[in-house]
């Protein structure tokens, strides 16, 4: 994602003339080419580099438990960013993820405490998530506003509901297997890896396939690339929005359930850190906020990078305040290297 190539050039090389061209040898603008490829590869490079830095600076880091810990963190972030990736590719954004995470956390702890059956709880949460996503999508379309503000409004509503529901509730209950699914020592059947990592791996594959191999996936890219042209090209714009925002809410709900397993107590604010982390993971992965480009594979990298960064900052001994400070600076620095938008001149 570079800024040296104009988006819609009317001056590409002429296709119709057959006259001899200059022989393709060394590209004319070597530095630009190298820079472009480097910036695209940077997320891939950062993942191992940050890991190595962690090993160097954090004593005892190179152990199974810290790696699993890192992967759990990445899984939580990766899953909550799954839907976010889709909404961003579609040209929108979902600010209601933290709220849905919180609501889902409350629901699962409270309802399980009240002896609801698990399948029923999951069904209820899923239905609610789909409802929330659909309302966000439909509101954005009907009101003709950017989903930033509609999901923002939904987050106020949802977080208010979550807070109200949990008002005074200090105890809740979660099934044991849920706790172990996010625990470092958890197992999935015979595999000594906590379930959440498996879920993330499977989810990642499904997400990438979904966006590249299904009709809705390609329509998502078209919608994000050019909403007007998409409508004219018979892309089902409203349906795509409903789908991506529902998926986003479902993923957030799933993360809320896992986080309930993490702590065991109802906490409607448990999703708050994910407000900026999902956006950061997507952008650091290299997907553009403009829409129409990128994909979930990049967000996987982004989630790993953000998780590694936070782990590094904690491990090096920074306190919470300093972590936040450092994260803010790092986000700016990283995005400055490869998340830059086009110059005005290049858009003409």
């Amino acid at each position, binding site marked *: 994602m570079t800024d040296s190539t104009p988006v819609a*050039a*009317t*001056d*590409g090389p002429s296709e*119709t003339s057959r006259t001899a061209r200059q022989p393709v040898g060394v590209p004319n603008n070597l530095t630009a*080419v190298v820079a472009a490829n480097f910036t695209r590869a940077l997320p891939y490079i950062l993942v191992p580099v940050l890991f190595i830095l962690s090993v160097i600076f954090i004593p005892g880091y190179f152990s199974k438990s810290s790696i699993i810990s890192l992967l759990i963190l990445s899984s939580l972030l990766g899953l909550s960013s799954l839907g976010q990736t889709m909404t961003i590719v579609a040209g929108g954004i979902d600010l209601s993820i933290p709220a849905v995470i919180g609501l889902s956390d409350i629901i699962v702890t409270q309802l399980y405490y009240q002896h609801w059956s698990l399948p029923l709880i999951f069904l209820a949460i899923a239905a609610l998530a789909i409802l929330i996503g659909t309302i966000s999508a439909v509101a954005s379309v009907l009101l003709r506003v950017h989903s930033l503000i509609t999901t923002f409004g939904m987050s106020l509503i949802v977080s208010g509901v979550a807070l109200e529901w949990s008002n005074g509730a200090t105890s809740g209950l979660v099934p044991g297997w849920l706790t172990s699914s996010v625990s470092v020592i958890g197992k999935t059947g015979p595999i000594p890896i906590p379930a959440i990592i498996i879920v993330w791996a499977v989810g990642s594959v499904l997400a990438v396939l979904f966006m590249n191999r299904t009709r809705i996936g390609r329509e998502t890219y*078209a919608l994000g690339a050019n909403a007007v042209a*998409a409508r004219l090209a018979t892309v089902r714009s409203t349906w795509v929005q409903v789908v991506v925002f529902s998926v986003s809410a479902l993923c957030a709900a799933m993360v809320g359930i896992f986080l309930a397993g993490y702590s065991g107590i109802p906490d409607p604010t448990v999703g708050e850190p994910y407000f900026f982390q999902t956006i950061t993971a997507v952008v650091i992965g290299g997907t553009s906020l403009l829409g129409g480009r990128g994909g979930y594979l990049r967000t996987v990298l982004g989630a790993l990078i953000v998780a590694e960064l936070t782990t590094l900052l904690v491990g090096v001994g920074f306190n919470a305040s300093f972590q936040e400070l450092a994260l803010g600076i790092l986000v700016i620095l990283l995005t400055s290297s490869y998340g830059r938008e086009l110059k005005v001149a290049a858009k003409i």
Partner: protein
Amino acid sequence: MTTVDVASRLDVQDLSRSFGETKALRSATLRVAPGEIHSLAGENGSGKSTLIKILSGVLRPDRGTLTWEGDVKQHLSSPASAQAMGISTVFQETLFAPEMTVRDNIFLGTDRLFRYGRRKGAELDTARQAMTDLGLDGLDRDRPMWMLSLAERQLVTIVRAIVRPWRLLILDESTSALDAQQRDRLFDYLRLARSQGKSVLFTSHRMDEVLGLADRITVLRQGTTVATMAVGEASRRGILGHMSGRAEGASMYSADTADIVSAAPPPRLEADRQAAGQPAATAHAPVAPTPVLRTPVLQTQQLTLRPSSRPISLEVRAGEILGLAGLEGQGQVEFVECLSGLRKPVSGELAVLGANGAAHPVRHYSGANRLGIRYVPRDRRHEGLFGPLSVFDNFAVTLWADFNRFGVLRRQQARKRFADFAESSRLVSASPARAISTLSGGNQQKVLLGRWIAMRPRVLVVNDPLRGVDANTKEELYGLFRRLAADGVAIIYLSTEITELLTLTDQIAVFHEGSVVAMLPSETSSDTDVVAAMFGDEHPGGTQRVGADG
């Protein structure tokens, strides 16, 4: 290359500019003298726009020099500095701030960031004069730009350029939205400016404009200046030849497309029909069997576009190419929008006729699509292209609805469809995975046309599809349209270029004040007949009747 020895206002030497790996300009040379109208000619991809952007301060060259009125410069740092030097540019894309008024858009950029006080009377007078010169004197300057028509917007951007003190005016395809009358007024203004010693540099794909207006012509090909000549030495063929690199006089059309035009329906369409299975009621495969001879497929009954206009009742037959002509804003665009379901007429019926003659009314856009009406929008950049996506994605977007199994794409089939289309439209592309932004404008247009043609239209409605496309690609696409018509597709072809209509279409419906005032057979009509009808003469060739009041 003819070297002409003239004292020059602008002297461009050996300019080059690359974008990543693409060399947009290799060695551009240009000389514009004072009191001269200079045309810059070249195909899409020749570097014209890049050169203009450099001259306007939007881009910097990698190498080369610009000499402006004797001062040698390496580059112009910004549009503001170019304007300060006296260079005013009107870009190909009409740029304006939609919520701001006409007045604000005219004076856009003339103030510094913080400027106090009211605008001086002299400036307002210049603006008023400019608007009168271009025929905009009736336009309310307090109106927000979004309310203006395409042509009015383009004219306002031209006014914006000329209200500043300018000595070189650069016009990049700036007449694309204007009708004949508006163009003539502009050209009169340009000639007047020339007589005052000012210089004009313009690009246009319309040969009549180039030959009719320019004093000298510079031809670019693949980023290099290949020819400079005075207009007296130039011929249409010669210029086209320089632009494409083919020997003077040789036309692509004669060699290859003749085969395409005369060919019987190619095998792939048959195979596609079989592959698509049984014909469905919702037509991507038209319900009708291979149309034999000219059965009517589209019918309007008493279609009224405006409260004051006459109803339009006509029939379009399979394999017919119906042209739509008219001065700007006379209803032909509204008609096209009604046909494609984007707009509801004031009254009247519009229907697609099935095999048994059953009429299926057209009610809205998706309905029209289902009936086999495909609309190719006019504004490629905003209504057609998916910039970041690949060529294949841009092409196949309309195919996914059909080529999927429970939502999962059947890419093999789509790829085959693309390969077939690329071959038949001579789309030269290294791989369909390329970003569409790397293609030239003409090839982008091919892909976009392909998107709609791949859906096997019954009726193809095109709105100025070859605007801004270079002459050689145009020839290729004319062949494509003719072949489609031979296959039985009805084509509704709106164009602002009369020659194009006369050569391509079977008959031309001329619009005036929202009504069809004449249906002219293309073979036997002349330019003048069409123009006369555009001005309201319902019996061109008869008494010249001045059109309704203005």
